[in-house]
C-alpha cells in the first residue's frame, strides 16, 4: 500500500505521478480516483502529464489514449494496455495498492 497524497491535494481533473518502479500515475477523474502505470506503452512518456477527459487520458507525446478504468488503449499508436492499480482513501489520504505482477491487464 503506497501513500500518494491527501485527497484535498488532488482535485478533479488533476493527476500525480508516484516514483515507484515502474512509476504509477494517479488521476482524479471528476471525483473518481484511478491509478495506472505512468509510462505510455507506446514510447517513453509520462501519462500523468497527459490530457484527462472523462475516463480517458491522452499521452502528451503522440496522443495515444487509455481508459483509466481498464488500462486499455482506445486508439493508436498504443497497442498494449497499461496496468491498473486499486486506489483507496483512508482518513483523507489516497493510497495505491500495487497490482501483483500476475494480475496485469496487459
Amino acid at each position, binding site marked *: 500500500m503506497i501513500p500518494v497524497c491527501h485527497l484535498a491535494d488532488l482535485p478533479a481533473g488533476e493527476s500525480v505521478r508516484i516514483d515507484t518502479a515502474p512509476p504509477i500515475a494517479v488521476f482524479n477523474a471528476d471525483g473518481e480516483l484511478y491509478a495506472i502505470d505512468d509510462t505510455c506503452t507506446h*514510447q517513453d512518456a509520462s501519462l500523468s502529464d497527459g*490530457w484527462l477527459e472523462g475516463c480517458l487520458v491522452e499521452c*502528451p507525446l503522440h496522443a495515444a489514449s487509455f481508459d483509466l478504468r481498464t488500462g486499455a488503449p482506445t486508439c493508436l499508436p498504443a*497497442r498494449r494496455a497499461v496496468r491498473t492499480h486499486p486506489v483507496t482513501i483512508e482518513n483523507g489520504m489516497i493510497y495505491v495498492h500495487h497490482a501483483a505482477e500476475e494480475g496485469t491487464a496487459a
Partner: protein
Amino acid sequence: MKSVAVIGASLAGLYTARALRAQGFDGRLVIVGDERHRPYDRPPLSKDFLTGTTGQDQLALADAEEIAELDAEWLLGTRATGLDTGGRTVLLDGGRSLTTDGLVIATGATPRRLPGTPPTGAHTLRTLDDAQALRADLARGPARVVVIGGGFIGAEVASSCAGLGHDVTVVEAAPLPLVPQLGDAMARICSALHADHGVALITGTGVARLHSGGGENRVTGVELTDGRLLPADVVVIGIGVRPHTAWLEGSGLPLDDGVRCDAGGVTPLPQIVAVGDVARVDGSRTEHWTSATEQAAVAAQNLLAGSTVARHRSLPYFWSDQYGVRIQFAGRRLPTDTPRIVEGSPDDRSFLACYERDGHTTAVLALNRPRPFMRLRRELARATQPATT
C-alpha cells in the same frame, strides 16, 4: 474501388492501409516497401535505439495479429521504379509491375548526402539498417564522432553518442542551428544544450570534404571550408532529406519538393493520393510523425470517396528528445513572430514559450514542460482550426 496499392511501407503507408480497412475497404490491398523490414517506428533510431535501450522488436508499428487483420499482400524489399498514371501501373524493380484502381504514394524521403562515395565510417541515419550500421560502428570503442548538421536529427545523434561516452563535435553550416524551425532566440537556447553536455558545436562553416585512408578506406577526418581539419573515427551526416519522388519523374504527376496534392492529399488524379514526408499537402511539406498519421486517415477517406471530401488541417506538431530534455513545438510560426517565455526559465532548460503575432499566440514551444504544453497546444488547435470534416 476493388484494389489499392500503397507504395511505401513505413508510418504513412501503414496508417493509410489501416485507415482504408477501417473505413470499409475490403478489396485487394498491396503494400510495397523498398526496405526488407515490416513497418517500424523511425523516431527512436536516433535516440533509444542508438543507445541500445530500445531493441528492434520494440520498434514494430504493427504486431502479427494486426498484420493478419490488415489482410494485405506485402512486397517488401521491392522498389518502385516508375509510374504509368494512365493505367495506374506501378513499375517495380526486377521488371515486375502492379496495376490497381487506387494508389497511395507514401515513399517518404531520402537523406541528403555529401558528394562522392562515402568512406567507411561515414553514416546517414534514416532506416533501421542505417541505425544498425551506426550502432555497430559506435560499439567498436570510444570514438571521435563528428556530426555534420545541427538540426534535430543531428542534435539527437550527438546526444546519443555523448551519452554512450564518445567525444562528439557538431558542425553546422548556418550561424546557428534550428533557426528555421524555432527562430533565433529559441534556437540559441536549444543549441546551448550541446555545450551543457560537453559536446562542441562549430557553426558558420561548411564541410569541404571527408578525409579517409587505410585498407578499408575508413574516414579519418572532416575538413571544414574554413580550412580546419577535425579528426574523426565516425561521421554522421544529418543535413536534411529530400522527398523520394525520383521514381515519379515523367509520370505526369506534379512534383515540386514533393508530390503536389490538395489539402486532402489528393493529386490531380483523384485515384492517386500522397501522404507523409513525400507529400506536399496544400503547398507545404512536413516531415513530422504526427502529420503522417493524420494525413493517412484523410487521404484514405478521399481515395475511397473518389474526390476531396475531407481536408487535413491539424496544427503542425513535433518533438525532439536530446540530452534528457524533451523539446515540443506546435503551431505555425512566421519568422517575425516574437517568442515570450510564459513559464519556467531557459537557464533551467525547462520552460514554456509562446510565439506571438499581433497579440495572438501562433505557436508554442516547451522544454521539459509536457503538461502545460499539451494544454496550450490544444487551446491553439481550437483557436486556429475550423471544425474539421
